[in-house]
Each structure stands twice: as structure tokens, then as C-alpha cells.
């Protein structure tokens, strides 16, 4: 693998007159000096991270990458930690809930909560790993906005959220087969049967 790019030295244009927006300090700090593969996640040191590390021990891992902090949390701790983050740490705005599929891993899915605190003007993410077919507690009771976001994650990845009031497909038709954002779902793949029955055409391609 050859990398023409060395991210440690951001290419600055010559003849820069105007001041550019300051780069996040944390990003620079997070960058290890010599790493041809680019920056790697570093442990995140902050009172919040310390607190949770102390409380939950190995179940919580606090990391930071390019100035963005995240907690990698054991699945069983998810409901507690999300609620605590909202109640104690004022992460009152759930920006996004999504997932990433790693088919080769044993626990195939990363489920990611993207949180923001209005009071602290700070973002963080909470990640957990779950296996295919496993379910995860819903966070609708914590943030009302999770409703559609979890439905979308269910629609796209087939992740079940326990306790969701109305977990059903949101973007795809109700009786569609397959979850398109899984890596084993090809880009040209579609539910032929559904297309033929409902649209009356041979193929949607």
C-alpha cells in the first residue's frame, strides 16, 4: 500500500493571506508522529471518560480519533450508559443512530449513537457491537427522535430494537425481503418477487 498522502502534514497553499479557521487542537494531539497508515484512535482522557471507565471497568473503552470522541460500550451496558449520558452528562440531543456491517467479524454489527450536548457544545459517539440476529434495547424512551432512526437501522440492517413502539420498515416497502445496507446485499440486488407483484414489471433495474 503506497500512500502519497501524509496526513500529518496538511498541505497548505502558498501565499496564504487570510487566516484560516483554526484546526481542532485535539486533532493535532491525537495524531501520532510517525504512522504511515494515518492516525489511529487514541485513548480519550477526560473526566467523563474516566468516570465511566471507573464505573464500568472493562465494559467501556473511551477513544478519540481526529478529535472526535467515542465510547465503545459492551452491549449489556447500553441502556444504562445512554440514559446516564442523557441525564448526567446532558447529552440531550441524539443526532443519529446508525450501524455499520462487518460481515467477517463475529459480532457483525457496530451500532452507533451519535450524541450532542447543547449545554456543553460537545459531540460524542457511543458504539457497541452486536451479532447478527441479536437485538438491542431501544432508546426511544431516552430520546424520542430514536423512533425513526431505529426504524431505519432496522430497515437497512435488520437490527432489532427491543422495546421500540412500532418497529417496522420505514423506507422500504413493508414486505420487502433483505436489508440493503448489509455488505452481503449486492448493489444491483433487489426483491424481484416484490417488484414483479407490486410494480408489475420484470425488474426494477
Amino acid at each position, binding site marked *: 500500500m503506497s500512500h502519497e498522502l501524509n496526513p500529518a502534514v496538511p498541505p497548505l*497553499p502558498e501565499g496564504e493571506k487570510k487566516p484560516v479557521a483554526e484546526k481542532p487542537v485535539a486533532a493535532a494531539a491525537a495524531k501520532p508522529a510517525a504512522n504511515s497508515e494515518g492516525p489511529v484512535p487514541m485513548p480519550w482522557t477526560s473526566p467523563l471518560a474516566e468516570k465511566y471507565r471507573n464505573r464500568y471497568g472493562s465494559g467501556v473503552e473511551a477513544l478519540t480519533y481526529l478529535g472526535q470522541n467515542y465510547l465503545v460500550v459492551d452491549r449489556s451496558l447500553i441502556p444504562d450508559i445512554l440514559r446516564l449520558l442523557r441525564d448526567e452528562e446532558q447529552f440531550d440531543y441524539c443526532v*443519529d443512530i446508525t450501524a455499520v456491517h462487518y460481515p467477517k467479524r463475529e459480532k457483525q454489527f457496530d451500532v452507533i449513537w451519535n450524541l450532542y450536548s447543547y449545554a456543553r457544545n460537545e459531540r460524542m459517539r457511543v458504539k457497541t457491537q452486536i451479532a447478527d440476529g441479536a437485538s438491542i434495547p431501544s432508546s426511544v424512551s431516552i430520546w424520542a427522535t430514536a423512533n425513526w432512526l431505529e426504524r431505519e437501522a432496522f430497515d437497512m440492517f435488520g437490527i432489532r430494537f427491543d422495546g421500540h413502539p412500532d418497529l417496522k420498515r420505514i423506507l422500504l416497502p413493508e414486505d420487502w425481503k433483505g436489508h440493503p445496507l448489509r455488505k452481503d446485499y449486492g448493489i444491483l440486488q433487489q426483491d424481484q418477487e416484490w417488484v414483479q407483484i407490486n410494480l408489475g414489471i420484470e425488474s426494477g433495474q
Partner: protein
Amino acid sequence: MTMTVPAQGHSAKDRPKDEMKETPNEVPNRDLSHSDSHLDLDTPEKPYLDANELIINMGPQHPATHGVLRVILKLDGEKVLGTECVIGYLHRGVEKIGENRTYAMFNPYVDRMDYVSAVSNGLGYCEAVEKLLDVEAPARAKYIRVILAELNRMASHQLWLGTHALDIGAMTPLFYTFRDREEILKIFEKYCGARLTTHAFRIGGCQYETYAGFEKEVKNFLKFVAPKIDEYEELLTTNRIWLQRTKNVGVISAADCVALGVTGPVLRASGKKWDLRKAQPYAAYSEFDFEVPTGENGDTYDRYLVRMAEMRQSLRIIEQAVNGIPEGPIMAKVPKVIKPPVGEIYHSIEAPKGELGFFIVSDGSIQPYRVRVRPPSFVNLQALDLMVRGLLVADVIAVIGTIDIVLGEVDR
């Protein structure tokens, strides 16, 4: 006579029915636990006099649902007992496409999400990838980005105003706003050759240098459009019918907004002064002096006022940017083949409709491993049910308009 709408798989789970007894113009005391839209659509026995409950299917082909939104309304006479949004008619799998294109190739696709503010989408995506690459666009590029993004915000708000006013029955503002939006689109066309799906920016800066006379044209536009905004306001702001149709309609409190993740003008109109351009400045926004307009009541009228004020603030920003645009390169040094290191990044910008976020996971290859778009319209639309319960059918139209959704972004 009563048609049961063939809804897409409604389980017969019984939820407590909201008993909204308020008159429409009062602020209903809402309980968020019912905000998930579930209508009991399968009534087994039709009552003899079925005047009480009527289930009506609004959309996907409806003149006022701004595209292919389908809203199933449960009505008591004309009073809305509940709504259920059925979306996905415009789903194109943008996120899946992103996983199968290179970083640069995916750039034009994001324009097609919120197609009335394509520039903002491009800005968000390019900055997210830049962040992942840990490069920074040059100052001149940032200024160009700000100018175009703010012009785009104006265009988006103008389109919103025109269609929103049309929904409420005022025909004329539509044509006024389209006349003025045309001037913005002309600037876009001259800059990058496209009017709607602009693809104006590249990862690392801008592809094109500004054309000769760009600054002059932008300044002329500022001079042209400032009185036009007054003109829109003259038609609507103190219009009695407009006031009656928008005041205390679709009220949402700041706390509800936060809980529902609602951002953008809707959040600001309910009194929360939060704008990503101020809170977490991106591009060159930290260098400009502008206000974040807020409302008080969180009703349709305040949202209208906030957007009108935002247009004026956009003019301020553009004026400062175009006056202080620095010389220099417009492209940072970015490799021909963009291959970010393994990692993930979330970057969000203040799109005209709210927080537009891109969460990109890279596996070190030339294609993103996962691109997640955090669409403001999608999340904001979730508040529709809360906002319209207890109102009338006509208000549903007004509220759909005031949330300012673009179905391309909702469905992606």
C-alpha cells in the same frame, strides 16, 4: 363510503388514543410518548354514522406534500386525531451507492438528496472527507464555499417561502420568490454550469475559480434581493389571514424539539439559539459577523419570521465574504486517488433545513466503507405528528410546509 386505506402493515397493537379536545388555535398539552404515529386503521365494524372518524390518505400524489410524502390522516370531521407518515417513495439507496463509489465519485450523488440546497450537501460531504483525510481547504476556497452555501440557503428559503405560501393559499409570493431565486441559480450556472444539482465543490477545495465578474454579480444580487425580501414580508407578515393561518399553528416547544432531534429554523423558532455555524463553526463561518435569529412561540409564524431573518443574515454573511475574499489557491493538495486512512468521522453543517451530518467510515480503500447521512428533513419530519394533532386538515398542509422537507433527502 369509508375506504380503509391499504396501509403498509399496521399491527393491531392498541395504543392509547389521544383525546384532544382543544380548539385548534390553542396549544395542546402534548405527551411525547404518543408521538410515535400509530393509527388504529383496522376498524372491524363500520358505524352507521361514521362522521366521527375518517381516514384519509394524503399523498403520495398530492399537491401540497412537497413531493411524494404520504400522510395517512385520521380525522374527526376535519380535526386531526393522528397522522402516520409513509415515506420511502423516493428511496434510491444513496448510502448503498456511496459504499460502491470512490470518494470523489460519490460527491455528485449527495447533491441529489436535498436537491434544493445541493451546495450545502456538497459542502457537508466534502468537508467530512477532508476531515477524514485531515486536510483543510484553502482560505479562498472556504470563502467561495461560504458565499455559495449562503446563496443556496437563500434559494432554499425562497423556495420554501413560495411553496409554503402557496400551500396556505397565497399564490403570488411563489412567483416573486422564484423570480429572485432565478438570479441565484444564474450565479450557480455561471460558476459551475449547473443550476440545481450543482456539484460545486471538490474534496480539498473548489474545482473552479470564480468567473470574471463573480464578485460584482454577487454584490449586484445582494442589492437586488434586499428590497425583494421586504416585498415578501409586505405581502405576508402583517396579512391578517396569514397571521390567522400561521399563529399558534403547529406549535412545538424547544424541549420537544431537542427530544425529537429537530434542528434548523424549526428549533430556532421555538427559542433555542443554536446554529452550527456559530456553535461549531466550519468553513470560514468563524470569521463573519452575523446573528442567529430566534423565535419565541415555536409556531408556524415564528418559523416564517426566523427564515425571513435568516435570509437577511445570509445577505450579511455573503456581503462580508465577498468583500473579504482572499486571493490564493482554491484547492488543497489532495491526492488524485483519495484513500483516507482507516477510521471514521462525523461532520455536520448547518444546512438550510437543519443539521446535515455525514458519518463516514473508511477501511483504507478508495471507497468509503460506510457513508451515513444524517438528514435534517427526515428527522424533522418526525415532529409532524406531534405538531398537527388536534389541528385541522388545512393546518397539516401548513405544518408540512413549515417543516420544510425535501423528500429527496427524507427518502435518500
